[in-house]
């Protein structure tokens, strides 16, 4: 096995890792603020995909404008979901989990009803491939990865420096203390849920031209996102990035040595091993 092949395998693994990190960050943000494991997170990703299909593939809107539209629309859908549903389930983790399952079913069946069952193709916005030292990656993937990194950075800056971002972090750390400091918990929760969903929507928009869109497309990224946040540590942004890179690397390399179907077991084994060694993930509480 040549070194070139090994490096290409790693590159494959890392290639889309940042997009899954986006999905994972949304999930972990929602969890840290509302203590909800949102199983319907993948459905918000799906929604972002379909917005891209309609706005970009059918209506012909600019690719990046479409991405912005997907982020905004899905974010608003998230705010609506929080205000109408999850808001009433604060402190009831089990109920919220069941409700998120219900939402998953409603959204998936609704998508099948509204958009049809067949895969809908979204044309590539960028063509061509980049070749360096015999390594290959499509321009499309490079753009997608860079966009994902920009979004991750934007999220970091938002949480770090903006007022609503800091309010959200305060609620995540200690809701009671935050409330005493004058933070509007309701607003912060709704915004947190919205931002979390917007990230999923953005990821869906980014991957739509690569993967086509279908009603059940949300299942895969959400499972990857679960693995990423549990390995990296819940509530940790650098942890999620680390988790994403680890998962991508393990899966990319694993595909060389074992059947591709069996590779899926590696991510879950990694979860078990990490939790055995560090019960709160690699970079929890960072």
């Amino acid at each position, binding site marked *: 096995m040549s070194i070139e092949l090994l490096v290409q395998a790693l590159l494959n693994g890392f290639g889309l890792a940042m997009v899954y990190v986006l999905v994972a960050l949304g999930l972990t943000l929602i969890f840290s603020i509302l203590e909800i494991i949102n199983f319907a997170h993948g459905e918000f990703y799906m929604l972002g995909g379909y917005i891209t299909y309609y706005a970009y593939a059918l209506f012909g809107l600019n690719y990046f404008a479409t991405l912005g539209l997907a982020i905004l629309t899905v974010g608003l859908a998230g705010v609506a979901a929080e205000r109408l549903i999850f808001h009433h389930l604060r402190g009831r983790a089990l109920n919220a989990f069941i409700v998120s*399952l*219900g939402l998953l079913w*409603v959204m998936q069946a609704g998508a099948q009803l509204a958009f049809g069952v067949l895969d809908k193709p979204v044309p590539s916005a960028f063509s061509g491939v980049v070749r360096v030292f015999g390594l290959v990656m499509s321009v499309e993937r490079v753009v997608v990865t860079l966009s994902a990194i920009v979004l991750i950075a934007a999220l970091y800056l938002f949480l770090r420096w903006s007022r609503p971002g800091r309010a959200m972090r305060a609620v995540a750390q200690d809701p009671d203390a935050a409330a005493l400091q004058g933070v509007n918990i309701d607003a912060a929760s709704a915004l947190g849920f919205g931002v979390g969903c917007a990230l999923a929507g953005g990821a869906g928009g980014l991957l739509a031209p690569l993967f086509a869109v279908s009603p059940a497309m949300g299942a895969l990224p959400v499972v990857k996102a679960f693995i990423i946040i549990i390995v990296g540590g819940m509530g940790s942004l650098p942890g999620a990035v680390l988790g994403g890179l680890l998962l991508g690397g393990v899966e990319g390399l694993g595909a060389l040595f074992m059947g591709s179907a069996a590779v899926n077991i590696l991510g879950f*084994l990694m*979860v078990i091993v990490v939790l055995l060694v560090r019960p709160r993930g690699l970079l929890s509480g960072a």
Partner: protein
Amino acid sequence: MSGPAAGVALIALTAAALPLITRDSYYLDVATTILMNLTLTMSFRLQISTGQINMAHISFMGIGAYASALLVTRAGLSFWATLWIGALVAASLAVPIGSIALRVSGPYYFLITFAFSEVVRLFFNNFFEGLFGGPSGLVGIPKPGRVLGLAFDSKLALYGLMAVMCVVVVLALVRLDYSRFGLTAGAIRQADLVAETLGVNVFRYKLTAFVLGSFVAGLAGVFFAHFRQVLHSSDFGLEPMVLLVVFTVIGGTGSVWGPAVGTILMTIASELLRELHHYEILVFGAVLILTMLFAPEGLVALPSAARRLLRRRRRQATAPAGAGLAP
């Protein structure tokens, strides 16, 4: 003790009365499925009662099912032996898995057990294909053999067997719930740390509940294998597991009868809605959301909630201009 005893008696009587009303194969099939799911949700609640959602519960059903199917078809053992062996295999694998998983709690526990269940499912699907049948699954699993002069080749007989198994399991679990063990479990759920400081070995209690639950799941799995006669790894994946959680929580986890109510109502509803295709999950999803919003304690809590409401109404009626600070 009359409450729980009456409940078990009710289940036993209903189960015994069904064949008098109908012997339609389809109804018997659905009834058998309900009883099988009931043993699963009741044993699942045993673990929820210590405050943990074990997403790998269905895997132990799968382990029992595959173990028995292989022991019967490959080693020629009798179903009546593998019924116990399969369940014991599930329980003994539950000891190490539970010991690892129970080191973490809350969402971490939820996700580590989910990881375990995926490992088990992918293992059955992708490894040792000659043994587990791989993605094609196992076919041609025989029905239970004759025992004590009774044959088990008819739907009715299999229904009867499942009914007996279910009643025994429910009886045992209800006894357990009202015993010292059940009280301790409740204490653990409400205040992990307090129970710990009071000298309760929380970890041991949780592990016991985990292993006991897995034993029951294994039993149900063995029955499942010889009832359906076909096994596929997806029968023990995320989707059926999610349904178990839904049945249990919709019914209500606070009472030992919650899972029973949830399992029976939801299974019947899903059969009635089967023809609606994807509208079925649309309706189901909406029902889940509304139930959790408006009946957060589950369906079993509805009567007492209504009673409370009625009492408050009555009180309001007697004191129309009641004090503003009423509790």
